[in-house]
């Protein structure tokens, strides 16, 4: 499995993805869907505005040790786009002058592969010792090289909230999505995190898992799934964790490629639209989140970032960060947004409705 970029796929181009979302696989409007904007207008949510900006999400780069079939970043070992220390310093400046951000959410790729990763976390803590830092850790990175073996201790030392992808509690579904051997290494990594206290009741160290459907379907009930995950991981591997986030796959990048290749694209889009939930729309994560790309540009969310849809205001880069402008902007929406409003809704923190 290679990234779309390495394959020179037309889908590596964000504009091509947007064309497909707006005009169908053949760009001929033979398959058209109700515009997402129209759905929001129908429930009085358009233009979509931020509520309160609390989460500062930073994508520190597209480099990753894995090449997952559903990856919306098109991440992989061949991706060299990573955030520099200079851009990180600009992020630190923003955090220093905008204490309203309660959470810094570090994602990638595998964020740990950025050589400035540890320095960056230490500096964030210096700026604001009480800020909650989330690291979206793919688990296998911990075992991929000796230099990462101590990551559980490093996370513990800085009281990082670890959020880790584990598409399923069985090997077959996990490896189908994330590659051969990923399940086994993920289990070992989870055991290492548990060993230092992550996910263990009373430790104060939070370990949350992320479920993505391994196929062209929506996640089931997050509550029921969490119970299945907890029962199975405890029984089979002695693993404990805090919460499960059930996340819907958005039809962009490699997941869009999968949908098109498998003939599921149209059915999946119809499924998302049929499941449109106004309550989920009101709670979408882009209303309280700002997403910063590896090169410092600012987006409404990580998905808009991958589609290169920058924020609709003049504060487009971290060097020109202006909280007021960002708080008053209209959020950029398109057809992929149906992924966040289907069923119980979906965000980087899982379902957005009960």
């Amino acid at each position, binding site marked *: 499995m290679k990234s779309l970029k390495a394959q020179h796929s037309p889908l590596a181009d964000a504009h091509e993805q947007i064309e497909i979302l707006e005009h169908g696989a053949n760009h001929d409007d033979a398959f058209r869907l109700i515009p997402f904007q129209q759905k929001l207008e129908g429930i009085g949510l358009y233009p979509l505005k931020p509520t309160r900006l609390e989460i500062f999400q930073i994508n520190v780069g597209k480099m990753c040790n894995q090449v997952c079939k559903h990856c919306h970043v098109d991440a992989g070992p061949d991706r060299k786009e990573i955030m520099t220390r200079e851009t990180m310093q600009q992020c630190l400046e923003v955090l220093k002058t905008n204490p309203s951000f309660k959470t810094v959410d570090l994602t990638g790729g595998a964020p740990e592969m950025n050589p400035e990763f540890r320095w960056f976390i230490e500096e964030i803590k210096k700026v604001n010792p009480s800020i909650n830092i989330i690291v979206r850790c793919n688990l296998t990175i911990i075992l991929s090289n000796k230099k990462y073996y101590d990551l559980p201790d490093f996370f513990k030392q800085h009281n990082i909230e670890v959020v880790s992808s584990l598409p399923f509690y069985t090997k077959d579904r996990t490896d189908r999505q994330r590659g051969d051997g990923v399940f086994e290494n993920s289990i070992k990594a989870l055991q290492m995190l548990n060993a230092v206290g992550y996910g263990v009741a009373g430790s104060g160290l939070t370990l949350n898992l992320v479920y993505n459907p391994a196929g062209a379907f929506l996640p089931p*009930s997050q509550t029921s799934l969490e119970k299945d995950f907890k029962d199975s991981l405890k029984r089979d591997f002695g693993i404990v964790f805090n919460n499960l986030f059930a996340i819907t796959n958005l039809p962009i990048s490699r997941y869009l490629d999968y949908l098109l290749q498998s003939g599921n694209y149209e059915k999946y889009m119809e499924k998302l639209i049929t499941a449109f939930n106004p309550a989920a729309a009101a709670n979408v994560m882009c209303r309280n989140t700002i997403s910063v790309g590896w090169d410092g540009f600012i987006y409404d969310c990580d998905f808009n970032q991958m589609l290169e849809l920058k924020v609709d205001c003049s504060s487009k880069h971290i060097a020109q960060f202006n909280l007021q402008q960002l708080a008053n902007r209209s959020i950029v929406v398109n057809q992929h947004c149906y992924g966040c409003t289907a069923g119980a809704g979906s965000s980087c923190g899982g379902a957005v409705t009960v």
Partner: protein
Amino acid sequence: MSNHYYNAEDLNKFGDVGKYQKELADKFFGWYGEVFKDSALSAKEKSLIALAVAHAVQCPYCIDAYSSDAFEKGWSESQLMEAVHVAAAIKGGAALVHGVQMMNKVKEIAM
């Protein structure tokens, strides 16, 4: 009229049955929704039962619906197939056990 009896798109029109008799349809769909909720049995367990019954009654709409639903809820391919075998075994057994009735009748009339 269409020239075939089953059309996959008709599954999405199931709710339309209420256009001819709303009160009964509302009662059916309300009851149906309640049946499949987490309760003494989980929604996940009920989905697998529904899949087996769908095969027993050989309803193509139900098979499509509950193959997807049961897989989405986390049952593996082998578990789904075992559920189908349970349905098949009961159907096969139901036919075969009537062999006893056949034997009884033959014994009744044979010298």
